């Protein structure tokens, strides 16, 4: 897909029920190296999603990274652990020290710190082997999933989609022009003016 802005997963708040199927699918897609299989019984590491279902009194929806163009999280990361790959903003867990600057910087709360596992085991903090590493976790649009983001496919209510916001803006432009074209076509006397 040719896109000029960063793509992102967007939720239809009218369809989301808050079930967290997206969080689990996200976790499953990113934890194959932690032996996470098809059933819950195969999971032996904490569930660490990269999007966060948020329930308020009247609604619910997952909040996830919008892959901002100026990406304040990336701007504040002193470790160079948040990088831009194409139009997407990606966390490099190996470099993250868990300083939380990105949590502070993100206006949406789309990043949090979560335990980091590899091979089914906690990855120890450098210099402190008794402690597991805690690293930034946020949406990476599932670059390794051939069918696109796992959350979109897992939603039982089709509430999620990958938004190409520039394309949808163009569609809205066309719709607006078409609406006016009808008025114009229906009023030949005005055209004569």
């Amino acid at each position, binding site marked *: 897909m040719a896109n000029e802005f960063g793509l992102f997963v967007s939720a239809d708040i009218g369809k989301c*029920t*808050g*079930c*967290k*199927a997206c*969080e*689990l*699918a996200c*976790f*499953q897609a990113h934890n194959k190296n932690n*032996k*996470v*299989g*098809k*059933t*819950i*019984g*195969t*999971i*032996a*590491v*904490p*569930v*660490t*999603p990269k999007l*966060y*279902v948020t*329930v*308020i*009194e*009247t*609604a*619910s929806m997952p909040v996830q990274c919008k892959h901002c163009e100026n990406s304040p999280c990336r701007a504040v990361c002193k470790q160079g652990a948040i990088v831009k790959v194409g139009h997407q903003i990606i966390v490099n867990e190996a470099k993250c020290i868990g300083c939380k600057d990105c949590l502070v910087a993100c206006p949406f709360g789309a990043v*949090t710190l*979560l*335990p980091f596992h590899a091979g089914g085991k906690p990855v120890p903090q450098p210099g402190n082997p008794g402690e597991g590493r805690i690293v930034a976790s946020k949406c990476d649009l599932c670059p390794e999933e051939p069918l696109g983001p*796992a959350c979109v*496919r*897992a939603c*039982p209510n089709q509430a999620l989609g990958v938004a190409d916001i520039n394309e949808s803006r163009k569609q809205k432009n066309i719709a607006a022009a078409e609406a006016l074209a009808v008025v114009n076509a229906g009023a030949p006397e005005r055209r004569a003016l």
Partner: protein
Amino acid sequence: MTVIAIDQNVCTGCQECTKICPNLAIEGLPHQPQKIDENKCVMCGQCVQKCKSYVSIAEHGFGAYALVHKERGLPESVVEPLFAAHNVTHIMEVKKALADPGAYTMVQCAPAVRAAIAEDFGAPLGDLAAGRLAAALRKLGFDRVFDTNYAADVTIMEEGSELIDRVKNGGVLPMFTSCCPAWVKYLELNYPELRSHLSSCKSPQQMEGALFKTYGAAVLKTPPEKVFSVSVMPCTAKQYECSRPEMNDSGFRDVDVVLTTRELAWLIKDAGIDFVGLQNEKFDLPMGDYTGAGEIFGVTGGVMEAALRTGYELITGKAIPAVDITAVRGIDGFRTAEIAVGDLTLKVGIVTGLKNVKPVMESLKAGQLDLHFVEVMTCPVGCVTGGGQPKLVVETDFEEAYKQRISATYDHDKELPIRKSHENPSVKKLYADFLKKPLGEKSHKLLHTTYCGDKKAHH
């Protein structure tokens, strides 16, 4: 006794469970924690399978998992995610019994368990594990590793004979199967006036349990009071069924504890057993001896097919032309077939997914259900998709899991040397040595029951 619960601190109020609950037992406002009305719940556990609201570090904090884990009384070895909707576990009681040298532990496994348990050890969906299941149970230290499939064969002898009796002697028809405790509960709650349509047969679990502490204890020369009877079920409602007050015809509680398939996987991991690497073993004789007919009880249409395989031969005295009765297979919510059995055309119906039973019951009430025998299973495609089966992480895998678990069941049926219940040599021996005949006095006492709290009539 609570069987299914929703954790008020974990539920997000998505109401996905309320949409699938077959008896509208889950109540609450959107985006608020939901509650189960225990007077309406049939304990099928489909909400447990559906629920995705897990104890989350991001939402509930780093310490929440340990708190919930402790509250639920789980062994420390359980590390998988915990969800709002869950079944109350009795795993610690089983651990205690296994560690008690004074207890004689007997275990039985439902057919659907072997079609799915390997999934919780990373195996492909529907990886058949009958031999590894028997090996794992023996390694866990059960004194005898028996099988519910044996009692399924006994069920066919009893239920098949009951059907023939009803058809020949003008009994109440159609007769409905009674193996599924959630379906029985649903009927008791919603259609108690139709209870004479339910077969008086206990479920295979309860038949096997009643036999453990009578026939089994005698064969093994063990005092029945020492027998601790455990069953491993794909089902959450089985724990409710075994605690029904009338389920004590052996003179004791017939089944002491039920573990779901998932809970058995926990127990196997807890004992450090490498399930994947186990060598196949056999279930113990006599109550672990089973046929293909017993095995297919785990899928929709299977009880019907097993009953027809035997019923045909009992009625006509001839071998059935084709053992595979494909007319009753499938996954549609309600399907019917006409099967020629000698001079009789047997009209049968199969319901799968409890929501599909309501129109059938309404048509029965209206006198429009022209059938002899109806099988009802609560879960989507039968017990292989039960509330206690390995839970899938994403719903997009449901269809594949259903398909593979069904194939595993039919594959196992095909590979077994005997595929008709009445040809099971250990069941023949049970009748010769102990029960004497189907629907006989001993069967009536141990293997049949009543519903809605009715008292059992003296034979």
